[in-house]
């Protein structure tokens, strides 16, 4: 499915990362593998440091901290946005929506459209698509898009497939109308027949959490995880990404009438360094044009990796310069989505720590 939006723009980006930093070197002993094998993986996959929340910290805590930072520093007024979209796979509660919880904690106006979207690694692009659609309404002047996840709390510390790479975090993206003649192109695909390859099997209504679902089991790969934990069929997900993402980006560029050369950066979701380098090789891109340096510093924080990549790589430059960027997210669902837009001259583009 293709989308085209006119006269819309991103006007600010803030990433919120937990202050707590874990190190793969310290965690290696938790995994049922030799040190030599783990060290080889560290080099290939980019396992190094990752940020995770302290026990008990929830998505709304990260989001509220980020919005309070923006309000306090006069980067955003509480009354100037008319919709708040939260994209998360780790809500505070089944009900109410966590976006309403955020609205309540900050005493935001009641004339505010609050919406939770259950999406993961494609969630940044999907949130932007939803925000641009909302901006077609006259009554909506600005939209706050929050991507946030605390999936470390649902990941087994004894699962080398997931835990060393998992990261928690949030991003706040302000989206508004643009007075210029900007055009944004996007595309999106979903395949629910493969929804089981990335999932948390227990904890919903299909399989409620119980003492039995909390028991650690060997999945046959020397990794211990429970049904309450995040499960990922790594090879299947890897092949899905390698097969679909280059084709998706190629389709997007054709739809937009654009070429690879005119794109300054390809900001892709970062599950691990190896996957991104293989994507860059396939697309014949030099690695600096597709940054893969975030997962080793912060971990894979689902829909937050793209905004963190933008904030950490472009920093203040994004406040003064403009870039042609292509974003691509892919993951749970399965879902894959990309967007081509001009990004720059934003009001803020920074990272803060949540303590």
């Amino acid at each position, binding site marked *: 499915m293709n989308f085209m939006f006119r006269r819309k723009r991103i006007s600010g980006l803030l990433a919120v990362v937990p202050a707590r930093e874990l190190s793969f070197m310290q965690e290696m002993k938790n995994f049922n593998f030799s040190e030599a094998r783990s060290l*080889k993986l560290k080099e290939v996959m980019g396992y190094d440091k990752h940020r995770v929340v302290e026990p008990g910290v929830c998505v709304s805590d990260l989001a509220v901290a980020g919005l309070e930072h923006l309000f306090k520093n006069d980067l955003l007024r509480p009354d100037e946005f008319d919709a708040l979209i939260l994209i998360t796979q780790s809500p505070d509660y089944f009900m109410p929506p966590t976006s309403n919880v955020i609205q309540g904690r900050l005493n935001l106006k009641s004339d505010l459209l609050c919406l939770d979207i259950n999406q993961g690694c494609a969630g940044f692009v999907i949130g932007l698509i939803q925000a641009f659609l909302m901006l077609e309404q006259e009554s909506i002047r600005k939209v706050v898009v929050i991507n946030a996840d605390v999936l470390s709390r649902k990941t087994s510390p004894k699962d*080398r*497939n997931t835990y060393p790479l998992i990261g928690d975090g949030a991003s706040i993206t302000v989206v508004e109308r643009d007075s210029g003649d900007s055009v944004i192109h996007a595309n999106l695909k979903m395949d629910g027949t493969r929804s089981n390859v990335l999932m948390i099997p227990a904890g919903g209504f299909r399989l409620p959490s119980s003492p039995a679902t909390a028991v650690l089991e060997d999945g046959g790969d020397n990794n211990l995880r429970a049904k309450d934990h995040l499960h990922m069929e*790594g*090879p299947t997900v890897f*092949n899905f990404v390698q097969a679909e993402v280059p084709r998706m980006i190629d389709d997007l560029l054709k739809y937009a009438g654009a070429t690879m050369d005119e794109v300054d950066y390809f900001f892709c979701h970062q599950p691990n360094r190896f*996957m991104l380098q*293989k*994507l860059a*090789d396939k697309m014949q891109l030099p690695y600096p044009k597709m940054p893969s340096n975030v997962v080793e510093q912060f971990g894979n924080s689902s829909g937050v990796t793209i905004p963190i990549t933008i904030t950490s790589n472009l920093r203040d430059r994004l406040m003064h310069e403009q870039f042609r960027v292509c974003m691509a997210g892919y993951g749970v669902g399965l879902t894959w989505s990309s967007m081509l837009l001009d990004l720059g001259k934003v009001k803020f583009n920074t990272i803060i720590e949540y303590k």
Partner: protein
Amino acid sequence: MKTVAEILKEIRPEFDFAASKDYIANGMLDSFDVMTLVSTLDKNFDISIQGVDIVPENFRNLETIGALLRKSGAKL
């Protein structure tokens, strides 16, 4: 330049790869070992094995790995 057999021995020194015809089925290479192997083969043979070719069938034994290397442009 190292041989594929030497590279395999470096990744999983505890196994006798010469005695197996299916490294995947025999549990000698898991998916993470395959990624380590691909990364090492890329550097060793100055190639980039395509992501879509990183599937278990291509890493069962020396013959399938050799075929993959040739497909990827390695000069063997």
